[in-house]
């Protein structure tokens, strides 16, 4: 078993839209998902977001149109036979440019979005190539800089929903000492099949950061409960998850039987929480969870002062 290492993970910067993660090099026109670094293809420090690039393209098309209008006006002035004609051509040219610039300025966000759509359509292959390059670079750093590899894979998984990348992230997270202050989101790394490393990770996260255990993680453990039980200390992993699940009534109501099966493994503080939750408002939808909790209470905590104060009893 490899020794876990203490690490500091940079917080994940979540964008409103996934495409906002993509950067393009203004020099070589290659794409990357890794920000704050030189272009992985040409090494120049000219990365800009694709939104910015789309804005630049929209501005360029405005400039071309304005130049064409100026050229037409200049031709008019050049071939003018009288000062009146020359003046007319100049005035119409200036007015046309002004009108067009005003209208274009008011609709620039639409033009930028249109350019962005075309850019994505046109450069699809280049984007995939860039993402693959990012993945190769990340894997190269696996042994020497695992944190960097994890952070890169986390960025890549914004767009590449691959089970392989998820497993790589899980494997790396399992080599880190997780802490409460770390930003851990299990949702993006959930797998469709059973993976012991993921079960262990969920158990570890449940131990250090209960808030990170949400519906998808609980559901995963419920779905693969038998497989988890076959793992070393599998029951403890499940108990950790149950301990995290009892923090919200929604989860208790959604998985009463699962919680009932592992309620006996809960530490006193978690069991007290569950006991108080049920004693406040017991519901028939909870199946035999209420009975099980009452049985454990009778067995272990009947005379415990913590259970007497503030709870009405089941």
């Amino acid at each position, binding site marked *: 078993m490899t020794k876990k290492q203490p690490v500091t993970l940079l917080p994940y910067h979540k964008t409103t839209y996934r495409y906002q993660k993509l950067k393009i090099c203004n020099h070589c026109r290659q794409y990357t998902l890794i920000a704050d670094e030189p272009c992985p293809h040409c090494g120049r420090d000219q990365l800009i977001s694709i939104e910015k690039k789309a804005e630049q393209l929209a501005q360029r098309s405005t400039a071309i*149109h304005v130049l064409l*209008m100026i050229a037409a006006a200049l031709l008019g002035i050049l071939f003018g036979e009288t000062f009146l004609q020359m003046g007319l051509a100049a005035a119409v040219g200036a007015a046309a440019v002004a009108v067009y610039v005003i209208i274009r300025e008011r609709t620039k966000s639409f*033009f930028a979005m249109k350019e962005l759509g075309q850019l994505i359509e046109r450069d699809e292959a280049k984007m995939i190539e860039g993402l693959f390059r990012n993945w190769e670079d990340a894997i190269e750093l696996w042994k020497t800089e695992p944190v960097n590899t994890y952070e890169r894979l986390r960025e890549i998984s914004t767009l*590449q*929903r691959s089970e392989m990348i998820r497993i790589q992230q899980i494997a790396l997270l399992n080599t880190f000492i997780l802490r409460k202050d770390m930003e851990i989101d299990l949702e993006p790394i959930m797998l469709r099949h059973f993976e012991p490393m993921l079960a262990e990770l969920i158990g570890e996260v449940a131990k250090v950061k209960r808030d990170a255990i949400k519906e998808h993680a609980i559901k995963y453990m419920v779905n693969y409960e038998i497989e988890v039980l076959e793992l070393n200390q599998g029951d403890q992993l499940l108990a950790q998850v149950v301990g995290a699940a009892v923090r919200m009534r929604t989860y208790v109501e959604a998985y009463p039987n699962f919680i009932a099966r592992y309620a006996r493994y809960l530490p006193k503080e978690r069991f007290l929480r569950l006991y108080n939750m049920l004693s406040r408002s017991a519901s028939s939808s909870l199946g035999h969870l209420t009975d099980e909790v009452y049985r454990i209470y009778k067995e272990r905590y009947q005379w415990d002062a913590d259970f007497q104060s503030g709870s009405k009893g089941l």
Partner: protein
Amino acid sequence: MITYVCIGILLLFLGYLCIRALTIHKHTPLPDDLDKQLLHAFNKEGDGR
């Protein structure tokens, strides 16, 4: 004469560009659509979900 032709062309071009600019919102993709387009492109192959 050529001056008037140039002015005519200029005004026609301006008209075309203005109509295009004023109807651009009908041809603009939504950010969510762009996200979908990208996700589709990146996950066409492989085991993505």
